[in-house]
């Protein structure tokens, strides 16, 4: 790791101020993506601003219509939350299969979506459930949030404070995990609810998570795995790497989507 300064602010406002004052500084939340990047010297921030001492950024609350997960809430806390399990079981289940127990004890929802790794799980839930991402200065609709590979609509000095998930009627997430890393080789989140019928695909897109319009249309007409029969995904905008070719990923999208609809019931 290169050297950096370290700040441990006690409030979001103080963190935002530190961040705005130094364009080369970076936030650190769970560190589960950032520290491996720093260890490989793939980034050289001047300073790390640790969100770890801001109690306001941790917690889950559930109303009749919405599950709100604050930005620094760990994957383990979401997975273990009885309230989330009741309101959106697919979300708790997704969180319970991120990486491994130790990654889940540190990694956070804010870090995961801000990082927008193309193989991360949470972006699929955020997009398929039509969530709203709240930041230190505004609210961003899921459809506007993920803008490309490792890219989001966040300004350099903007902090994710919470994610609001509308509670769906039905939802499920199925991923084909990379057997070594557990990241999604392909993951499909399907949801039917106040935001309509939505299908989000992670792990496959060369530009990160995306919605699958053809599948959404078919499922809006008939919510069943059979409705997806014959729907294919053009391979040209998909990832290809040592783990899977783009054609194989295109095929997996169909298989995971059908399983997800079956699981959602």
């Amino acid at each position: 790791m290169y050297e950096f300064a370290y700040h441990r602010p006690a409030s979001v406002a103080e963190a935002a101020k530190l961040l705005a004052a130094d364009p080369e500084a970076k936030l650190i939340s769970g560190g589960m993506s950032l520290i491996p990047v720093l260890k490989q010297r793939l980034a050289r921030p001047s300073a790390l601003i640790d969100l770890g001492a801001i109690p306001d950024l941790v917690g889950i609350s559930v109303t009749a219509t919405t599950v709100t997960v604050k930005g620094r809430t760990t994957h383990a806390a979401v997975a273990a939350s009885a309230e989330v399990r009741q309101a959106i079981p697919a979300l708790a289940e997704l969180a319970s299969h991120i990486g491994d127990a130790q990654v889940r004890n540190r990694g956070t929802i804010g870090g995961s979506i801000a990082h927008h790794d193309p193989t991360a799980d949470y972006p699929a839930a955020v997009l398929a459930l039509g969530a709203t991402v709240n930041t230190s200065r505004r609210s961003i609709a899921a459809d506007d949030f993920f803008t490309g590979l490792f890219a989001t609509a966040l300004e350099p000095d903007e902090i994710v404070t919470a994610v609001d998930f509308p509670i769906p009627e039905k939802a499920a997430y199925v991923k084909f995990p990379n057997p070594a890393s557990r990241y999604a080789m392909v993951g499909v989140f399907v949801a039917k609810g106040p935001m309509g019928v939505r299908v989000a695909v992670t792990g496959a897109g060369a530009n990160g998570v995306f919605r699958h319009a053809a599948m959404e249309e078919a499922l809006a007409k008939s919510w069943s795995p059979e409705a997806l029969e014959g729907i294919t995904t053009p391979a040209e905008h998909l990832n290809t790497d040592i783990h899977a070719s783009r054609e194989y990923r295109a095929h997996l999208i169909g298989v995971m989507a059908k399983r997800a609809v079956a699981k959602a019931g």
Partner: protein
Amino acid sequence: MPKVSLTVNGKPVSVEVENRTLLVEMLREQLRLTGTHVGCDTSQCGACVVHVNGASVKSCTILAVQCEGAEVLTIEGLAAPDGTLHPMQEAFREYHALQCGFCTPGMVMSAIDLVQRNPQGLSDREIREGLEGNLCRCTGYHNIVRAIAAAQVVMHGKAKELPRAAE
């Protein structure tokens, strides 16, 4: 140099570190607690697992400065002062759950957290899934799973003595 104050195995310590010092580096190189191992550079092997504020974490993927005020427990802190082993350590011995021993400190620390979080008890399958973050290159995991299954009985107070391994 920045100074970090924390509790390690029940003792308050204050250590001068660089901001970029990893918790595992501080433990091994400065506090000489070399029971915690480093097996990879990619946050994947789990040889470095310790507890921070009661949760198992990979000490190679957390900065020492992030542990300001925290309670850290390492493999050295498990046995009683008179040398009596923790039930999980005893179970690893009884069930021959280690060969070279390199992965063992991390396995034991992960296993204790796993058992503590699941007072209802774990099936063998759940134990295997719970060990996703710990790699062992020797044992094939089988005896590790048996050891954890035995230790949970004692840790949950369902038996006083560790069930003995079959001869």
